């Protein structure tokens, strides 16, 4: 039986075997988790439970519940001064993942190119390819703090470059951009007439400066598809809830695909999302405080033991270099898992240019982090 050529040609993840190994192991310390270690705030969970008791178990409108869209629009305005219309500029999606898929499918014609800074989240290249586009990876490195520069974008643009897909704070590097850096990027984006798909799901976890949405910069709102979700800020990964805000024309196109493929995000999650926005920010700030401490702790311990590690500005990942150990990131991760029962994610999962690094997630309890750092140190000393 034949499957689609396009799917067949999708590059399989080189670390699937490693993932399966880790998933089946017991009694390991995992620093490989891409979700908060906190549980969804009780207020939010309680609201979801109550809604089920009350019988809220139906479909919602394709775009998502009006109350949720209104809450989001209000939140974006209060938090960032953004002005979006809840009727035709906002769409509720099943996590940012769906929003991203919809965005590329809504804008790309066959063969059109999308610029993606690398290292990047694993799905970016694949969703662009599935949408018929061509991902162009722009390599960033530790010496630039894993940040994309305006010059790189300008150099990479050809006549069929349609969009830039950017994620900040970044999974896996933790890099983020200041307002000034974003202004530089915005300038070249406008000059080259690109659409920007901006995945800002880690926005609330920005530590050293204020997060600036790209769409808040002058002249950018009409060319940015702003993606965000509830997973990271409110520890709601399993609720699968996100949204897209952007130009009405693009949101309408995304809604068209969404209504045929997904219909709507789960109603329980949407009701939980309304509650999260209403009352969740204090929990978010508590979490952020905790992450800031762990970030300092982990970076300082890693550097102490000789794993060169830049200070990430957001998310809950650090991305140290393992180059001086003369091992591929996969071998390093495998060896550490076998010898010390500590799991982390080999950098190569996030693109070829991420080889020589590993991703360590500090979304883990302080006790776990302390023990894991001790074990990594022992492993390096042997």
């Amino acid at each position, binding site marked *: 039986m034949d499957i689609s050529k396009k799917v067949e040609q999708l590059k399989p993840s080189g670390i699937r075997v490693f*993932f399966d190994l*880790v*998933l089946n*192991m017991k009694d*390991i310390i*995992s620093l*490989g*988790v*891409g*979700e908060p*270690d906190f*549980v969804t705030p009780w207020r939010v969970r309680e609201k979801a439970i109550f809604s089920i008791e009350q019988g809220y178990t139906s479909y919602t409108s394709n775009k998502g519940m009006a109350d949720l869209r209104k809450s989001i629009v209000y939140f974006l305005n209060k938090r960032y001064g953004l002005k979006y219309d809840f009727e035709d500029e906002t769409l509720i999606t099943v996590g940012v993942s769906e929003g991203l898929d919809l965005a590329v499918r809504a804008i790309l014609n066959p063969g059109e190119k999308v610029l993606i800074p690398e290292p990047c*989240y*694993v*799905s970016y290249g694949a969703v662009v390819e599935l949408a018929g586009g061509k991902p162009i990876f722009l390599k960033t490195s530790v010496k630039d703090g894993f940040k994309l520069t305006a010059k790189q974008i300008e150099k990479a643009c050809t006549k069929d470059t349609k969009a830039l897909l950017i994620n900040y704070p970044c*999974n896996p590097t933790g890099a983020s951009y200041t307002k000034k850096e974003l202004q530089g990027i915005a300038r070249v984006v406008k000059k080259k007439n690109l659409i920007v798909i901006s995945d800002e799901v880690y926005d609330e976890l920005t530590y050293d400066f204020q997060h600036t949405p790209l769409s808040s910069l002058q002249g950018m709102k009409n060319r940015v598809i702003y993606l965000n979700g509830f997973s990271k800020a409110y520890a709601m990964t399993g609720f699968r809830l996100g949204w897209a805000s952007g130009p009405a024309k693009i949101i309408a196109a995304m809604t068209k695909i969404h209504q045929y493929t997904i219909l709507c995000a789960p109603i329980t999650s949407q009701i939980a999302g309304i509650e999260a926005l209403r009352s969740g920010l204090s929990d978010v700030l508590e979490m952020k*405080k905790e992450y800031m*401490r*762990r970030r*300092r*702790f982990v970076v*300082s*311990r890693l550097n102490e033991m000789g794993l060169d590690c830049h200070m990430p500005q957001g998310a809950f990942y650090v991305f140290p270099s393992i180059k001086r150990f003369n091992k591929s990131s996969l071998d390093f991760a495998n060896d550490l898992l076998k010898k010390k029962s500590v*799991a982390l*994610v080999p950098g190569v*999962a996030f693109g070829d240019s991420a080889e020589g690094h590993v991703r360590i997630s500090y979304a883990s309890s*302080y006790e776990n982090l*302390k023990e894991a750092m001790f074990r990594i140190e022992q492993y390096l000393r042997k």
Partner: protein
Amino acid sequence: MNEILEILAQDARIRPEEIAKLTGQSVASVKKVIEKFEKDGVIVKYKTVINKDLVKEETSFVRALIEVSMTPKKDVGFDYIAERIYSFPEVKSCYLLSGSYDLLLEIEGNSVQMVAGFVASKLSAMPDVRGTVTHFLLKKYKEDGHVLKKRKQKQKLNISY
């Protein structure tokens, strides 16, 4: 709250070296701040939260909350009489409250008789105490923000992107 206090409130056993790493301050300055807090009485004591229901060797013990109504004393108000009450070792906590009564006490003893004896012969016998209401505690679920029941490990994937 001060960041060092926040960290210590979560874990009294954490060492200054670790606090230094968590806060990005030097070990010396962390130590200095803690010493100052101790000296000023901001840090009263380092203690452990114990679920006494699970302590096996304890033969029996009883806890009660007691509401106390008082007549405030001229010039010294409630503080004078409160001090006379909280100085009894049986009194584990003592709060001055607004509302229909004045003091709330948490009492611990070996038996119901002991608590009853304390109320009858010590507390009620004080000239400024107008009345008491005693509630025996049946179960403690949460103390100072810590749920006493050991929670099951939550199911999360070991690894994810």
